[in-house]
């Protein structure tokens, strides 16, 4: 064993050497088996005999008669049994990644990232992939409804009736000079924005308010102050040698995670001789923080001071950067000397000086990225100004911060929505139209948005369900799901993509834009009055005028349009390469910076951070069971939110979380409070408590209602900003306990049969790697074997997983779930350790419990050559294929579960119930018809996406050539935003996977068991000093 590899642990109990953990590891399932050895009763006997008799009787009858219904006319493009793909754009969040929609027999069954899209480049996050399930959500509205505001009762309405009511309300508002307000989230569609403008122009007091619950408004505001233009720059993580995040989570939830993850990991290839360095300064352990080379824990109140102290080091104490002599800069930074800030923030003396030196050494190739909601509301803009100052001082403008082609993925304005609230309070708003946001749920409860809605005479929501906001509207006019709609998107200036319907609308819904067109026309005035045609026609005309004329397309517009639909994405000439000139930084913006750091929060006080979870984001897809059951990448808890507390603080408060049972505490912020279980989270700042937003929905649907508590209720609205961090909070123990479904406490990948486990994770540092590429790794053992080696004459499938590229985002888990019909089981079953995920991401910590380092390991069936499962199956239901796959034959399996017991990687899953036999028919439409739906009593596990292997082989066979790299991509590999997973033929020495598995970083997990897996992991490489941070 290599001495440099630290000991890795999965839970605090394991770190503390709790004997229970060892017992757990030796056990296959958490709960004692119910199938105990009681003497069978008379009733059991009769049941069994009855079954035999029923079988015998059934033998005389025909099986159920089944009908086959043919097409009337076969659609030209459809071949039953063959997938049809549509290029489109993901509509789950405004990041607007390019997608390919896989449809079978007319129904979308999977979303995959589009390789040609300049932002997402083939990846798609977990939320984007799971948004497919929202299409089939049985709790969607089937058509428009009228809501009785007094009682909340809903009644089916007709589009005609709704249109008439809306037209009269709109006409009344226009004639009476009343205000018409359209409240939306970020609208990335330029054509929709233009339609909205045309629609609202008719009203003297019409206004469009954009509001994002997960807001980047502070960045835009600071850009406006510093450069005179309100925009979000295009951050180039691929150009950054040194990336310093200050409470920002670009790999998890910030702005454009798929794009950022791809860019970040493109610079994390140690084989290239260099690697970028990521320094995270943050209060909570974010996904980005878990991937940081160096991480500092700083409470939210101190983030601004720390940022300014870095600037002070570069511009005042040791003036070297541009703007150094500037008097305004000197004045602004005077109160923030590094030594004082380090003392206040609890950082080691010299930390910030050393970081400033590191930044200076990487000037022009570094990036300071401050989280727009990480600091308290009164610091939010100032910290962005400080980050801008640092990026200017370091010459990063135009290299890692580009304003020439800005991001359009966050256009919400906190000031605008708060001013809307005030206008509603004053009774000024006569008509309120709400699309794509849920303010009654996401705005701070203290604002009382729900009550203020009562002062608006006419409200229409375009939500797909009667959500928290729609409950208080007059009508709900449900928009299509984005897979049923036409649309276009411009996530970055110059990058335009189209979204096209992949299925006809399932229900009597209508595109939001068609509704606006209908209302605009019925008004009989304004620019929309004279229009004809649908939203689709409007969109085409916009493209004809806006895009076609600017393109160099030689053919007709129809040809251009067809091409754009086929490609899905269109880029303006020269876009993306144009770099912005470093705009003149306006030092006047520094007036935002407080002249003194303000009173330091007292040491014992607790600071609440409401963070955006990777799984549920702002809560928009709260009714999505795939996302609810997706464990949080860091805490590994699903189906709940919780109060995260640092281990030392938990000890001080006398609260604990153990064996999925947690103490319940009351979180009190003064204006609101609620009870939640605690989660003891290593790496959290001891003075911080953290709660995820996005939970606690009350009108999401049957899946999402009453899961956790609504964190937004604790948010603040002060000084024209919405504050999610640095909220003073008090925690008191209630004495109650509640279960938390944490998946990292069971299904331990088992070490050897000795009591002392062998490492499952290997890691090294960049310096050591450059000296010895096999550093941190263990030399392969050549154990003698009782088995003769298999012969693989044709293909042999294998996989390489780069632990240095895996950021833990869990996109692959949802990809696997969608591809392979993996069922959702619910919280109570997860608590028994019976979740069904074929692919899980194990999260390991190492080092100090208060400030650990983290590493993620995707764990799936290793398709061992000497598979322990195969030797113990009494019915040969799990066997080895001639191409090296470990096969699970469902129809042969009798459910002894011996295989799972004998699997050292604990990747096999047993169907305790008929999980897929869902009562809601709409949910069956999402099933992949190429994959068997497993029934009760059957074992299942990763197949390496055997149906995709077959498709790839059939494709090659049709061409008469062998399978090439890229012909077969497993679902996990396809979805991975960072390309951490490579699949292919390891019998072909020229394949990509063969090259990867030969690299010195490669190792097999639990190689000493001589199972000979075909999954090769590559050692994690950290870019930090050998001794640790």
């Amino acid at each position, binding site marked *: 064993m290599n001495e440099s590899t630290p000991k890795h642990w999965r839970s605090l109990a394991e770190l503390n050497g709790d004997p229970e953990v060892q017992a757990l590891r030796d056990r296959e399932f958490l709960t004692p088996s119910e199938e105990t050895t009681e003497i069978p009763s008379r009733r059991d006997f009769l049941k069994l005999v009855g079954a035999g008799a029923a079988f015998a009787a059934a033998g005389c009858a025909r099986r159920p008669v089944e009908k086959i219904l*043919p097409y009337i006319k076969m659609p030209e493009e459809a071949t039953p049994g063959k997938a049809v793909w549509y290029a489109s754009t993901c509509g789950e969040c405004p990041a607007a990644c390019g997608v390919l929609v896989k449809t079978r027999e007319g129904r979308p069954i999977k979303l995959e990232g589009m390789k040609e899209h300049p932002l997402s480049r083939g990846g798609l996050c977990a939320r984007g992939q799971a948004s497919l399930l929202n299409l089939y959500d049985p709790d969607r509205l089937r058509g428009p409804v009228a809501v009785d505001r007094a009682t909340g009762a809903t009644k089916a309405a007709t589009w005609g009736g709704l249109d008439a009511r809306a037209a009269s309300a709109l006409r009344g508002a226009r004639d009476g000079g009343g205000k018409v307000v359209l409240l939306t989230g970020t609208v990335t569609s330029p054509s929709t924005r233009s339609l909205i403008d045309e629609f609202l122009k008719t009203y003297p007091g019409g206004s469009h308010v954009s509001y994002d619950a997960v807001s980047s408004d502070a960045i835009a505001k600071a850009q406006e102050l510093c450069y005179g233009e309100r925009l979000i720059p295009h951050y180039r993580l691929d150009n950054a040698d040194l990336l310093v995040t200050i409470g920002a989570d670009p790999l998890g939830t910030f702005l454009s995670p798929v794009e950022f993850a791809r860019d970040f990991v493109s610079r994390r290839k140690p084989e290239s001789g260099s690697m970028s360095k990521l320094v995270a300064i943050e209060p909570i352990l974010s996904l980005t923080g878990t991937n940081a080379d160096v991480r500092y824990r700083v409470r939210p109140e101190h983030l601004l001071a720390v940022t300014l102290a870095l600037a002070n080091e570069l511009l005042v104490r040791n003036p070297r950067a541009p703007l150094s002599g500037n008097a305004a800069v000197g004045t602004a930074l005077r109160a923030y000397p590094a030594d004082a800030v380090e003392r206040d923030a609890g950082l080691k003396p010299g930390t910030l000086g050393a970081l400033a030196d590191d930044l200076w050494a990487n000037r022009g190739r570094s990036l300071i990225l401050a989280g727009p909601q990480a600091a308290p509301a009164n610091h939010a803009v100032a910290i962005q100004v400080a980050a801008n100052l640092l990026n200017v001082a370091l010459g990063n403008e135009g290299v890692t911060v580009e304003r020439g082609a800005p991001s359009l993925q966050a256009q919400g304005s906190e000031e605008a929505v708060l001013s809307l609230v005030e206008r509603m309070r004053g009774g000024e708003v006569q008509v309120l139209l709400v699309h794509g946001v849920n303010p009654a749920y996401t705005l701070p409860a203290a604002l009382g948005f729900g009550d203020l809605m009562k002062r608006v005479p006419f409200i229409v929501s375009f939500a797909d369900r009667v959500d928290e906001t729609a409950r208080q509207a007059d009508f709900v006019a449900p928009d299509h799901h984005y897979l049923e709609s036409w649309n276009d998107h411009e996530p970055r200036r110059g990058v335009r993509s189209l979204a096209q319907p992949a299925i006809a609308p399932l229900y009597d819904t209508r595109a939001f834009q068609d509704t606006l067109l209908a209302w605009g026309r019925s008004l009989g005035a304004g620019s929309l009055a004279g229009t004809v045609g649908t939203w689709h026609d409007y969109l085409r005309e916009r493209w004809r005028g806006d895009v076609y004329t600017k393109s160099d397309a030689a053919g007709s517009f129809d040809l251009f349009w067809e091409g754009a639909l086929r490609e899905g994405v269109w880029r303006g000439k020269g876009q993306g390469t144009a770099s912005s000139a470093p705009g003149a930084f306006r030092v006047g913006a520094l007036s935002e910076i407080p002249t003194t750091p303000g009173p330091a929060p007292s040491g014992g006080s607790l600071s609440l951070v409401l963070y955006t979870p990777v799984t549920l984001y702002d809560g928009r897809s709260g009714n999505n069971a795939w996302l609810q059951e997706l464990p949080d990448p860091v805490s590994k808890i699903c189906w709940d939110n919780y109060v995260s507390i640092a281990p030392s603080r938990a000890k001080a408060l006398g609260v604990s979380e153990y064996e999925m049972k947690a103490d319940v505490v009351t979180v009190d912020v003064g204006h609101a409070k609620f009870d939640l279980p605690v989660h003891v989270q290593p790496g959290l700042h001891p003075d911080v408590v953290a709660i995820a937003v996005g939970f606690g929905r009350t009108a999401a649907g049957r899946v999402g209602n009453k899961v956790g508590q609504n964190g937004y209720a604790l948010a603040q609205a002060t000084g024209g900003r919405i504050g999610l961090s640095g909220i003073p909070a008090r925690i008191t123990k209630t004495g109650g306990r509640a279960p938390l479904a944490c998946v990292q406490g069971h299904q331990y990948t088992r070490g050897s049969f000795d009591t002392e486990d062998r490492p499952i994770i290997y890691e090294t540092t960049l310096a050591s790697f450059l000296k010895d590429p096999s550093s941190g790794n263990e030399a392969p053992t050549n154990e003698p074997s009782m088995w003769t080696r298999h012969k693989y004459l044709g293909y042999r499938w294998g996989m390489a997983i780069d632990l240095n590229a895996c950021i833990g985002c869990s996109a692959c888990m949802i990809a696997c779930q969608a591809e392979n019909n993996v069922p959702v089981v619910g919280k109570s079953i997860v608590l028994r350790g019976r979740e069904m995920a074929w692919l899980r991401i194990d999260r390991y910590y190492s080092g100090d419990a208060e400030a650990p380092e983290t590493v993620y390991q995707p764990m799936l069936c290793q398709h061992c050559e000497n598979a322990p499962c195969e030797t113990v199956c009494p019915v040969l239901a799990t066997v080895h294929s001639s191409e090296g796959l470990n096969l699970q034959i*469902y129809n042969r399996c009798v459910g002894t579960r011996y295989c799972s017991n004998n699997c050292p990687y604990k990747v096999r899953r047993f169907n305790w119930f008929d999980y897929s036999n869902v009562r809601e028919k709409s949910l069956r439409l999402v099933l992949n018809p190429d994959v*068997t739906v497993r029934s009760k009593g059957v074992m299942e596990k990763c197949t390496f996406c055997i149906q995709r292997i077959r498709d790839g082989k*059939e494709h090659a066979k049709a061409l008469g050539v062998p399978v090439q790299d890229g012909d077969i991509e497993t679902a996990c590999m396809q979805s991975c935003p960072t390309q951490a997973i490579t699949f292919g033929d390891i019998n072909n020495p020229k394949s990509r996977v063969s090259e990867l598995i030969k690299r010195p970083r490669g190792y097999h997990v639990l190689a000493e068991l001589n199972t000979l897996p075909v999954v090769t992991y590559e050692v994690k490489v950290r870019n930090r000093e050998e001794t640790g941070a």
Partner: protein
Amino acid sequence: MVSGDLSTLNPKQFFAIALILLVLGGWSFFDSFSNVGYAPQQPIPFSHKLHAGTNKIPCLYCHSNAERSRHATIPAMAVCMNCHTVVRTDRPAIQMVTAYYQAGKPMPWIRVHREPDYVYFSHQWHIARGFACQTCHGQVQNMDVIQQSKDLKMGFCISCHRQNKAPTDCNTCHT
């Protein structure tokens, strides 16, 4: 034998008896899966003998997807109407097809050949290898009423795969 109080049985005896009964019942049940000779009455008396036999219409004229997909598929109603807008329009059955077609309703055919959901079978590759449809479906061109003529069970598939040196890995059919 089972007499008196069942609780006097020890678990071994209990399960032995239950097992015997289960096996006997199960045997007759699973044996019935073959469905050889299954020839349900279809909504119209469509004759393969007339179409494929007498008139020698190639199988793939109607079941055209068999060449390019795993499913051979029942032809779309429009395919029937290719001929029957002019041919034999006086027959009640044809008038029924026409009525269905014009109403936009599919003909509710009764399925005859069926593999279980856990079996992957692709018509495309079997046709590409040059197998005649009759290999699995029997002499359809002689059938007035379509019926199943082979049991289409695993043994039937495997023996043919062995004879033709086709793969016999489990995942060839079970995915």
